[in-house]
């Protein structure tokens, strides 16, 4: 280390510690420097632009060029997800996309992995609640061969049975793992209660994984995956003129028949006002989660609700974290969130608290929510604070290619207006404090909240009955524990 040398040299040139204080006659720079400074001139910010093209097979390609680093990233995003799981085969969509990397064309999983490593490239595939993706990234100098591998995986997956045996065992084991992990137990319990038997309330089980075969994956893939159902997002050190011919050459004639129409999500509103408890004997903390369904991103009060959520619990400096963490010391952190997908989303809050303060923490959480709806509505200074945060944080949302592609995919996938990004800040800034409070009142009915607590029954269960909520004990699969 060279630092000790530098310090030794500085010691010869004078040590500030022994310097006498500034003479009184001079301006006191030390004092001036101890006043919180305002901003410099705000630099211009130009949102990155995208270019949209269409391949020979009709596939839309959105390109976001960024020459900063010699990397590229592209992902085909598909309009499938957990909602495309057939009942009894929950998990089929996700495992189908997980399996794409396990064999394609005449390549085995091992060969694919080796070829990608040699290129320093990454091929990533997967699915979630309501979208799926087939992506590739790496150094631009290796883009051609990486695109070849990506094309093979996208258009010729083989779903090899021996690889499914390995993955199937892993997935089945993970069902059990999730039932031991307290946050996961709380999340699954809450969604199960809210959404019942619809796709958002169902989770894969050992039986559903057992029921899935490679043939199901092949059928699924042929039924859903094609250019009609997808958009390709490309970003990085590559232009539309460069990438489009490379893509057209590889997938321009890829055009399988995709016939399925999207079913309506059968989302169920739960009976709220109940606290569901799941026992985790000996837990050092209780996981608290409160949730209820709200509207969509297209609703007129989406932005008022977004801002109200920030004031109430969305950020570190929001009411709920400042109370539960910074004032009471009950938790390492507490946050509220708006989850928006296709159709109605959810609003909720999550925290983990020391076991012995489970009841007081729930009381404070409940109090913050009900106070915001009655005696302590969102104040103008709070709204202004978080509007300022949104405005100032905005340019940082466009730093990386990945961020830009994610936003473009969200706009497409959820049918948002094409000028969503440009209009985001004007919408945020237009929210009034009355609108924010009205959105809270319209969307968050405390009597409809679903409460979930995962913790040590012996220590916390009796106390839960003092909260004025109906208390029901569930097991980790969502079944009522009789006499609980």
């Amino acid at each position: 280390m060279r630092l000790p040398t530098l310090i030794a040299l500085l010691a010869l040139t004078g040590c500030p510690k022994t310097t006498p204080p500034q003479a009184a006659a001079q301006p006191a720079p030390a004092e001036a420097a101890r006043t919180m400074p305002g901003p410099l001139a705000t630099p211009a910010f130009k949102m990155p632009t995208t270019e949209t093209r269409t391949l020979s097979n009709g596939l839309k390609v959105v390109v976001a060029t960024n020459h900063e680093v010699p990397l590229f990233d592209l992902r085909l995003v598909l309009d499938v997800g957990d909602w495309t799981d057939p009942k009894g085969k929950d998990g089929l969509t996700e495992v189908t996309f997980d399996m794409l990397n396990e064999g394609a064309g005449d390549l085995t999983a091992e060969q694919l992995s080796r070829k990608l490593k040699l290129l320093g490239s990454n091929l990533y595939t997967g699915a979630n609640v309501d979208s799926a993706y087939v992506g590739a990234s790496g150094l631009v100098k290796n883009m051609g061969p990486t695109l070849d591998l990506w094309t093979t995986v996208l258009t010729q997956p083989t779903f090899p049975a021996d690889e499914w045996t390995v993955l199937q065992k892993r997935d089945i084991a993970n069902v059990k793992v999730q039932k031991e992990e307290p946050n996961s137990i709380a999340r699954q319990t809450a969604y199960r209660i809210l959404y019942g038997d619809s796709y958002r309330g169902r989770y894969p089980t050992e039986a559903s994984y057992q029921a899935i075969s490679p043939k199901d994956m092949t059928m699924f893939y042929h039924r859903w995956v094609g250019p009609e159902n997808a958009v390709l997002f490309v970003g990085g050190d590559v232009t539309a003129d460069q990438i489009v011919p490379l893509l057209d050459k590889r997938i321009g004639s890829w055009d399988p028949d995709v016939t399925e129409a999207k079913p309506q999500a059968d989302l169920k509103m739960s009976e709220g006002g109940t606290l569901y408890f799941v026992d985790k004997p000996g837990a050092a903390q209780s996981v608290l989660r409160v949730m209820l369904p709200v509207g969509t991103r297209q609703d007129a009060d989406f932005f008022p609700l977004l801002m109200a959520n920030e004031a109430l619990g969305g950020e570190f400096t929001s009411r709920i974290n400042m109370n539960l963490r910074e004032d009471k010391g009950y938790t390492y952190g507490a946050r509220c969130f708006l989850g928006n997908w296709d159709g109605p989303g959810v609003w909720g809050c999550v925290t983990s608290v020391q076991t012995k303060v489970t009841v007081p923490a729930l009381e404070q959480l409940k109090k913050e929510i009900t106070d915001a709806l009655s005696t302590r509505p969102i104040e103008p200074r709070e709204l202004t604070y978080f509007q300022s945060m949104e405005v100032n944080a905005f340019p940082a949302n466009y730093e990386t290619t990945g961020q830009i592609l994610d936003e473009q995919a969200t706009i497409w996938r959820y049918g948002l207006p094409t000028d969503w990004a440009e209009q985001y800040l004007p919408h945020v800034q237009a929210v009034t404090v009355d609108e924010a409070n009205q959105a809270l009142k319209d969307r968050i009915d405390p009597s409809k909240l679903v409460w979930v607590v995962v913790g040590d029954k012996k220590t916390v269960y009796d106390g839960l009955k003092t909260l004025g909520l109906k208390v029901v004990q569930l097991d980790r699969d969502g079944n009522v524990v009789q006499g609980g």
Partner: protein
Amino acid sequence: MIPLALMMTSLGTAVGADAPASTAAAAQAPSIPNEEYTLDNGLQVILAPDDSTPIVFVQVWYKVGSADEKPGLTGFAHLFEHLMFQGSEHTGPEYFTPLQKIGGEVNGSTSFDRTEYHEQVPSQYLPLALFMESDRMGWFLPALDQSKLDNQRQVVLNERRQNYENPPYGSAMLDLYAAAWPEGHPYHHMPIGSAADIEHADLASVQGFFKTWYLPNNASLVISGSFDEKQAKALVEKYFGAIPKGTDPQHATAQAAAIPQNKVIREYQDVPERKFWAAWISPKLYAPGDADLDLLSMVLAGGKDSRLYQVLVKDKQIAKDISARQFSMGLGSLYILSGTAAKGHTTDEVLEEADQVIGHLLSDQPPTDEEIQAAKSSYEVGFYQGLTTVTGKGMQLSSYNAMAGTPDYMAKDLARYQQATTDDVVSWGQKVLRQPRVLLHIWPLADKPADAPADAPQDEENK
């Protein structure tokens, strides 16, 4: 550089034909251009302009970590880090409030070797970020009081419960480090520390800790992103220049540690699966062998073409997952092999098989040229990925500066991987993995034998 031709030949694919020519400035070799200088009070300053987005990243890196903690005060460096967010003399009572208002991303972290604080703010708020960081460097103690300490002690105890006590296997790393590093070694305890020590931390110790370590001459400041260098230098002088230099602190040192003999720990907990961790002491960060062991990890367990995955997970199906990784630190590292037994199998079976695979790799079945090349290429791309954000650049500069002795270390860092040979990888593997190791098995309670001790982990010496 990796000879590109060789790399492509091994694939049998001609690539030049339809790869667009990169126009990126960094196309030649990854680097982070920067200017480094030192204030009169000893604060090292590193400026790395990057105009691509109008944001700026500010990081202050203090050369103090959990390794510097005194006995009875474990977890103290990290508890202290929390207190630094409780406001200083001129900032108001909460560090986050003024910075979150202007869209800042604010955080800090404590490791064995250092404590770092950072914020990413819109460029026009560079003065505010520098004001805030300098105020807690120079004017922290007047704002500290008992109630802040009491509150953050509870927050930290909850952080410990959330990350180490409540999740399955949360205690594994605590136990592994305690067993691998001898009593009294700076790495014997993890940065989170013991709950009892955190409970007992008092105000006088906090004050003493600040006075000892939180000095401009024990810190570096990095600014990366979109800013004017001349303006930034004036601001740095304005806000940090008046903070007095202190006595250079005495940093933790450690004799080369060794695990004297194989040690096996068996624990039974409320967990769903049988897992194991095997740890060897290995070369410290940036020392000879450190990068070679990274390459070895890639050959052993980096992806579906790796040796351990193929034999243990794919062919024999005795493991659900397997991982091998060099955990690099400033005074010495741990090389950790870990995995989960497949249903119906034991971690002992997994280990026995893993030992066979590793044994062959280090003797009669050395890595092929292609395996080594694949490992190198995987690392190379990571260097570019680190350059896509000003936060990534800033963090890397601070780390190079403190741990490698210069912010301009990226080319040398990359060369460590590019220049490694198959013989280097094998010989470092032999040197490290043939030494005694610590083994930790954590199994579900249902597996607990009737004759196992009720509470204490079963600790057996073998070989």
